[in-house]
């Protein structure tokens, strides 16, 4: 048996890859080079796509910061606001954003009025909606830390802003007065209202 296997082995070892002996490596080398080029191209495209996504994503977020209710990037702004709050836990951020939006909407209303743009009517309802959200945010923070000086100072600043806006933009006076009421409801020892400010009771 060993002899037989030995014979078989001898013939086995005599088999030669004739077709590959001369040019096998050359053709394999071409294949390897092609593979390398494809891999480099793929890597380059991946890097380019990543840079593009990061850049455009960052740009979008930056552009979204100035977005107002009703604008295309506004949902992105609200989403990134929620993400920021998860990590930051600073409840003043949404309050400041709502104030910035109220100011922005008022200024936008004036521009649209000058241009006789029909969207001007929609702006008023947007301002009211935003004032409503502002009110909610203020109440929530007031319950948590309403007595803090920082919070009170912020409300003072907001009130001053709204009062100044009324003079410049009287067409939005009604909405801005509501915003001022919100700041008052958030402040301690409000001099105008009769009650101490939980639910604003009627003025005398």
């Amino acid at each position: 048996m060993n002899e037989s296997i030995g014979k078989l082995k001898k013939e086995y070892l005599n088999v030669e890859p004739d077709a590959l002996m001369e040019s096998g490596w050359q053709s394999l080398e071409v294949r390897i080079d092609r593979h390398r080029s494809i891999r480099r191209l793929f890597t380059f495209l991946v890097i380019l796509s990543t840079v593009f996504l990061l850049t455009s994503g960052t740009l979008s977020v930056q552009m979204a910061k100035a977005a107002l209710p009703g604008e295309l990037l506004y949902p992105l702004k609200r989403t990134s606001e929620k993400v920021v709050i998860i990590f930051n836990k600073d409840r003043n951020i949404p309050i400041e954003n709502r104030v910035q939006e109220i100011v922005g909407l008022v200024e936008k209303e004036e521009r649209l009025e000058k241009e006789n743009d029909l969207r001007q009517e929609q702006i008023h309802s947007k301002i009211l909606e935003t004032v409503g959200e502002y009110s909610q945010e203020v109440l929530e923070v007031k319950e948590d830390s309403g007595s803090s000086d920082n919070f009170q100072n912020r409300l003072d600043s907001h009130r001053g802003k709204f009062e100044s806006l009324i003079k410049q933009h009287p067409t939005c006076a009604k909405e801005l007065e509501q915003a001022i009421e919100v700041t008052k409801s958030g402040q301690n020892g409000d001099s105008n209202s009769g009650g101490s400010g939980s639910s604003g009771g009627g003025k005398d």
Partner: protein
Amino acid sequence: MEPEVLHLVRQSKNGKKEAFGKLYTLYLKKVYRFIYYMIYDTNLAADLTQDTFFKVWKSIRSYQEGKGSFATYLFAIARNVVIDHQRKKKESHIDPQMEETIPSGENIEEQVIAKEKRQEVRNSLSKLDGDNRQLILFRYFEELSIPDIGRILGKEEGNVRVLIFRALKKLKKIMEEKI
């Protein structure tokens, strides 16, 4: 593993194509004849040999020096290439007579004798199924160790010994039937 081979493998892992070219030259015959005796087709064996080396090039970084020789790694990939091919072709039996070419040129008599001898080997081995055939090729023709064969097949050493014993017994029976 021989130091020269080890050096070439390490260089290939670093992307040195020339070093891999030397490994190709060193191991071409081994891989080719194994594949040829698994599928009995000269042209196809050449293609699958190239496929094997291409796959080795792509995956050589995953080769670990402590886990078997480089030849073991090559044969494992070659075996998988053959299996993949056979799966696609779904051929259950290869006729070793099929691909014989007509001798031509000088020394026709020598060519015919060589052809008959090759035919004898093929006829004996082709009667074994693929699993038994590869065991004979690995153990008795390529002289791989039992542990290395175990690594290629993904089986325990004890199991490999039993399988080789059975394959040898079958081959003996085939050769006795021919006499």
